[in-house]
């Protein structure tokens, strides 16, 4: 136990929060949640080469790049925190579901790390069974030495409204009217992570484009723009991509779209096909899909982006016209 916590009589703990996957977007929520319960929360920070490599070593090799990065984040917290917190995101609201890998994530990481440290988890499954959340919160309360009511209240007031937030914390703040726009699509923990995305957004901005992502569109608009589908629920990030792409495709300044996907991503294989179908049958804008995994080289990646930008029609003139 850290010395500055020694004076506290309760089972105060240092909670480690790995900054990957869904927590990438919601780390502030969880940090606030644990701090409101009197704990100290440590985040794992940006993805580094070291984190990435340890994740690749620890994980089963079939899993995707972001899960490997996540495991690396969790491993980097061993020794820095009393326990590692991994929420089990099955679905954040009704009629939406997460990637199946999130449902088993706490167990997967626990086994990959060989039970080296203690783990805390919260079940989030509002589509199938919201009672599970309450149960897991009560267990968490026991672990933290707090009353179940305090923990439930903290969850309801701090975390719950942010799980399906209307405005994403990753929205871009800059707005230059007139500049040609490139839409970057992809899971938030891929496109906003500098290492995993090889700074895709930065590179496009340096080339003189304004970059917009589905997360610049309000959540309700993203949902409204999704065409009806047969099943009663859809993948959450899938909805973000489909609705976001549909909202962005109508921007007059839109010059092209880039979809960044991790190798063998199940959700993207489905969503990409639907988006491509839309683009083929609607406004035909240039579309680049880039698939990356831990073996991707940055030079090849850059070449593909350059080739795509060179191919875009008349963006130079669009830019000039708008400025004049």
């Amino acid at each position, binding site marked *: 136990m850290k010395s500055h916590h020694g004076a506290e009589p309760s089972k105060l703990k240092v909670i480690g929060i790995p900054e990957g996957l869904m927590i990438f977007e919601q780390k502030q929520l969880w940090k606030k949640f644990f701090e409101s319960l009197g704990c100290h929360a440590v985040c794992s920070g940006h993805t580094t080469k070291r984190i990435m490599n340890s994740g690749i070593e620890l*994980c*089963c090799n*079939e*899993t995707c790049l972001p899960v490997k990065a996540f495991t690396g984040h969790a491993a980097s917290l061993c020794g820095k925190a009393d326990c590692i917190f991994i929420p*089990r995101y*099955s679905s954040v609201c009704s009629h939406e*579901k*997460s*990637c*199946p*890998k999130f*449902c*088993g994530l*706490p*167990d*997967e990481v626990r*086994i*990959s790390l060989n039970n080296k440290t203690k783990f805390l*988890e919260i*079940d989030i499954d509002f589509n*199938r069974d919201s009672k599970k959340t309450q149960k897991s919160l009560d267990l968490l309360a026991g672990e933290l030495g707090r009353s179940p009511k305090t923990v439930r209240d903290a969850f309801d007031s701090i975390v719950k409204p942010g799980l399906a937030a209307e405005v994403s914390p990753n929205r871009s703040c800059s707005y230059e009217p007139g500049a040609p726009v490139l839409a970057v699509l992809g899971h938030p923990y891929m496109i906003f992570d500098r290492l995993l995305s090889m700074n895709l957004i930065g590179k496009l901005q340096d080339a003189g484009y304004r970059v917009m992502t589905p997360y610049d569109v309000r959540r309700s608009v993203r949902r409204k723009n999704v065409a009806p*589908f*047969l*099943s*009663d*629920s*859809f993948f959450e990030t899938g909805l973000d991509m489909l609705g976001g792409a549909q909202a962005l495709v109508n921007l007059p300044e839109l010059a092209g779209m880039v979809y960044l996907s991790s190798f*063998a*991503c*199940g*959700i*993207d*294989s*489905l969503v*990409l*096909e*639907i988006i491509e*179908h839309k683009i*083929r*049958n609607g406004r035909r804008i240039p579309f680049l899909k880039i698939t990356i995994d831990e073996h991707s080289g940055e030079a090849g990646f850059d070449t593909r982006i350059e080739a795509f930008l060179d191919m875009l029609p008349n963006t130079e003139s669009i830019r000039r016209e708008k400025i004049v």
Partner: protein
Amino acid sequence: MKLTFPHMGNTYIALKALLDTLQVDYYVPPTGSRESFELGIANSPEFMCLPFKKVLGDLIQGLNHGADTILFGNSRGQCRLSHYGDLLQNILHDMGYRFHYINLNFRDLTYGEIRNKLEPLLPGGISRARLFSAVSSAVKTIFAVDDLYSEACGVRCRECRRGDADLAIRRFEQRAKAAKGFSQTRRLIRETKDRLAHVPANGAADPVKIGIIGEIFLCSDPFTNLELEKKLGNMGALAVNTMSTSEWIRRHFISAILPIKPKDKAVRAAQNYMHTDYIGGHGIYTIGNAELMCRDGIDGIIQIYPFTCMPEITAKSVLNEVQLQNNVPIMTLILDEMTAETGYITRLEAFVDMLQMRKDRVRSRSG
């Protein structure tokens, strides 16, 4: 109106008999056809899973042969099967086909659901009682066919003359294609069972027992799993398949009808590793069945799934732990359209040999 449907293992035998009974005109895509598979691969998204490509190929074949109605559906789970319907329709429309799509809810396949979806197809209408009895017969036939195939597994690994069981099954499949209605199909199953019972067997044989777990389509479809059961049997190993079409029926048809849902043994057994009851698809059963089979004493386990299958990847990440805890070897086979059969056979041979040696060593120690 002409109906077509995709293959999943030997389901077509029961489905064909059902459609015969209901007097619906249909076209069965060719079984085990590389041509339809290639059609599916060519028109599918690259990273979509193997079952999707197979299903699409079968449907294209069906539409090419004059079918105008597709019988398929979608699930409600966390696996991509929930969205096959959307994607299939998109792709087939883009290819220029026009058709009517019947969307069954696979997750809760109740009588009501089947009646609602099938009734519009029957021009003369049908009484509830007749539909009920026809669907029940189809379910019974699915169970009987799966039972026949697992019996064949038991015979194949012990037969004195290699190929006897295969011959019986091949003849069954040939004649099943021509059979009409339930009674003919049932008679055929009985005859084949009889034939299998009379295959001369080596009584002293003590084959290694290998459990098959994994994604249900691959486990139950001999064409896509490159005849895993048959190959293992011919190597002298007894294959125990935990995932078959009847398993699907048990979980999503019978349990959808039952008023009280029984607790699943496999889900409970999986709790040692996964503290949840659902990781998408049948992933949790993969883990649970592996654990249950280890407890019952099995020599080895093969997990098989299509490349990029999300629930099975999650399951795989803890199977290593199952293997260590129980000291039972588990091999994972991941298949896609690029899988070469020779490499596949080599891996199976090596696995069976290794299990045989382990078994011999234990026996020589105890004996």
